[in-house]
């Protein structure tokens, strides 16, 4: 019974260990904690690529989370923290890339394609209607 309890305790805490590490961070206000949460979810881990800072267990992600924590507590704005990361790791760290000529297609490509598709659709419908009108 004792062993079973120990085992259950182990698996429970074993699986929650990474998130526990984060909960050890103390914040001076709940606003700061919320800002921290949203920042580490917005920033991409430079090592693991398809994870954000919040999800990644890699060493550099741990360091960068701590850096975000410190900068928030030092009173840095979100923009300053994002700029700090971009200066070191490039725009790669942003899950939401900035609007620029290089990312134009990324942001607006789908809408352009949708527009083109609609144009083609209207064109096909119009010509079909015209042809039907001629034949009848």
């Amino acid at each position, binding site marked *: 019974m004792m062993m079973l309890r120990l085992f259950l305790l182990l698996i429970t805490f074993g699986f929650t260990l990474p998130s526990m590490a984060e909960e050890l961070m103390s914040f001076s206000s709940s606003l700061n904690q919320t800002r921290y949460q949203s920042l580490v979810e917005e920033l991409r881990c*430079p090592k693991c*690529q398809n994870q954000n800072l919040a999800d990644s267990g*890699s*060493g550099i992600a741990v*360091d960068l989370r701590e*850096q975000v924590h410190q900068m928030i507590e030092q009173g840095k704005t979100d923009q300053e923290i994002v700029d700090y990361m971009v200066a*070191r*790791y*490039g725009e*790669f760290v942003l899950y939401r890339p900035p609007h620029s000529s290089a990312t134009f297609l990324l942001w607006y490509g789908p809408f352009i394609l949708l527009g083109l598709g609609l144009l083609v659709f209207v064109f096909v419908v119009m010509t079909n209607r015209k042809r039907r009108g001629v034949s009848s």
Partner: protein
Amino acid sequence: MRKVLLFIPLILFLVLGSIFYLQLGKNTQYMPSALVGKKVPGFTLVSLETDQLVTQEDLPDGPYLINFWGTWCPACHLEHPFLIELADEGVIIIGIDYKDEKNLAQQWLAQKGNPYANVLMDEIGRFGVDMGVTGAPETFVVDRSGMIVYRHQGVINAQNWPVIKSHLK
């Protein structure tokens, strides 16, 4: 005219298909460094060998490499013999002992040889963050003017050295 329009979907398909095809097999781990084209960021680190404070002012004048390594890093063990060869050829390498322990690093260099002109300790990885390092080993090429011109992630070996060397001037 109408015939041509019929081919538009096929043409679009081929264009998109070839764009996607060309992207296949690319190394997605590769990430251009945000530091390329900039000076080495300012730092104050302790030298492993002399215990003295070293700043960016003390960096070599000529072209050199900055190599991040640690005794905890398995790939660094693989890289080490090649770095010794490079040092023998006269390449100046500044080592950054990244998130490591001093005595372990000293043991490593005593046992395996020391290819570094100087080894600076970055115990908490602060300088690593300023350099945009994602792990070890990672190597930066700094040119004569003190500008970072190239970053190599992973082990330096005989295969990739020619590319790295081409930036070292």
